[in-house]
């Protein structure tokens, strides 16, 4: 293919050269050139058609140089050659009109075919582009729909979660009005050992001194522990305020330094709440109530583990500890109890009945291996086992009057 083009190019160049030469010689020798001369010259030149480009260029340069040298001017005018057809000069034969028409038709057909082909290709391309556009549009729409769907799903999910959270919060709030320990943090009663006596689950052991205010100290200790468990805030409530102010639901004094009962305190705290140690420090003796203003440290609900305030079973006690935290209870204190240092206290002192108790304490845990409750006392941290004692299940009427309280949030 390339070779054919080169050949054609050479033929065409040769033709131009002949024309130029013809014209030059026409100009130079216009007056004396005859037809024979031209034909002769043509024949000679025709033989030279196969010259290279450089040769042609050289020839042309020679012609130009010759013209300059002779100081001749290049002019075009009618000459003898004009009388002849190109085909006569070149020896080519022009196509006949029919041939021309045929060629024209062929050319038109070819062009038509090419046009149609191009049109078809264009249509196909357009179709392809359209399909592509539609596909992309579909994809975009699909993506958009997917995103929209996802967004809707996400919003729905978020709404559902919020509703669930709200419902859970409401339930928890309602539930937490019936317990101090959230369900998910509640210890299993099947655990052989459990106690609310850790650094983050207990408050310090107080010292009631010579005043018989164990009931006030137990009330405060139970509230403080459970408030810490429920709200994560350490409190130090005023036992003095309880001692001086607390009255039960019937208006009867909850107690004094000569004894009392925490039930009356819980009644009072349900209505009035409790004051802090800072507000009313402990004096160790009964005094006048300095303030009965309502406080935020109130009891939401309270009750005995057993309706008759009797000694609960170990299982009942464990359930109460797990659900409510520290439990207010009583025990019969004897000199042997006072002398406790460590181990398990198992005196099983002689008692006249289930209610033969004399001391209010706080039960904070159990140990089935020891078969004992862990009891927080109010004789300071130097007594017993850092202020605590393990009392064997059933010994000294431990657990009589066991009561739970639900503290405020």
């Amino acid at each position, binding site marked *: 293919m390339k070779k054919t083009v080169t050949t054609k190019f050479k033929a065409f160049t040769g033709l131009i050269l002949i024309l130029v030469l013809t014209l030059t010689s026409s100009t130079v020798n216009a007056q004396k050139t005859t037809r024979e001369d031209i034909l002769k010259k043509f024949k000679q030149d025709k033989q030279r058609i196969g010259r290279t480009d450089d040769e042609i260029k050289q020839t042309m340069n020679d012609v130009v140089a010759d013209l300059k040298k002779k100081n001749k001017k290049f002019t075009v005018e009618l000459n003898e050659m004009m009388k002849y057809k190109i085909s006569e000069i070149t020896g080519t034969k022009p196509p006949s009109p029919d041939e021309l028409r045929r060629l024209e038709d062929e050319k038109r057909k070819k062009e038509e075919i090419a046009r149609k082909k191009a049109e078809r290709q264009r249509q196909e391309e357009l179709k392809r582009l359209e399909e592509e556009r539609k596909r992309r549009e579909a994809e975009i729409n699909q993506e958009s729909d997917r995103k929209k769907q996802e967004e809707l799903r996400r919003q729905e999910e978020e709404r559902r979660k919020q509703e669930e959270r709200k419902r859970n919060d409401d339930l928890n709030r309602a539930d937490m009005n019936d317990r101090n320990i959230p369900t998910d943090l509640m210890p299993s009663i099947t655990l052989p050992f459990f106690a609310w006596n850790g650094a983050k689950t207990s408050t310090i052991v107080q010292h009631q001194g010579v005043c018989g205010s164990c009931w006030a100290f137990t009330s405060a200790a139970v509230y403080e522990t459970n408030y810490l468990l429920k709200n994560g805030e350490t409190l130090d409530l005023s036992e003095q305020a309880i001692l001086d102010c607390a009255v039960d639901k019937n208006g009867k004094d909850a107690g004094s330094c000569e004894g*009392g009962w925490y039930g009356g305190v819980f009644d009072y705290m349900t209505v009035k709440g409790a004051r802090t140690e800072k507000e009313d420090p402990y004096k160790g003796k009964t005094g006048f109530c300095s303030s009965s203003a309502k406080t935020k440290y109130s009891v939401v609900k309270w009750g005995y583990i057993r309706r008759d305030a009797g000694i609960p079973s170990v299982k009942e006690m464990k359930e109460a500890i797990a659900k409510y935290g520290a439990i207010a209870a*009583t025990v019969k204190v004897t000199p042997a109890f006072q002398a406790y240092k460590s181990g398990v206290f198992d005196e099983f*002192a002689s008692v006249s009945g289930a209610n033969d108790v004399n001391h209010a304490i706080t039960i904070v845990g159990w140990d089935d291996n020891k078969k004992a409750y862990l009891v927080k006392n109010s004789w300071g941290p130097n007594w017993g086992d850092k202020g605590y004692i393990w009392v064997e299940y059933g010994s000294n009427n431990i657990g009589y009057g066991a009561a739970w309280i639900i503290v405020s949030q």
Partner: protein
Amino acid sequence: MTFKKYIFSLTIFAFLLSGCVNTPEIIVKTGSGEQIITAKTGKPFTISLEAQLSTGYSWKLQELPASIKIVKESVLDEKKNVNITGGYEIQEFVFKPAEKGDFTLTFNYAQHWKKKPEFEKTNAIKVKVE
């Protein structure tokens, strides 16, 4: 209040008995000062002292004379109609003298579980054994 009346009546009753018929029982209330009782050789006598065991405090005999033996030491069971904790109770000490003579029984009220207990109260009871 009923309990206090009960204690008071018991005290009066014991005092009368101790003065008239040499009863072996005497009840000493807080702040009632020095008491004198008369006992008989070989016959047990009881000293009851009011205490609030729920405070961690209790009565403890400081020193027991060689001729007197301690037979029993207990906390008086009390029937209660109401729930109460932290109140007063009676600590009973039952002694049996073996010889005649005059003795002093000193009781200290303290938190005896402490390393160096401080006596909140002290009661010295003179016993004349006949």
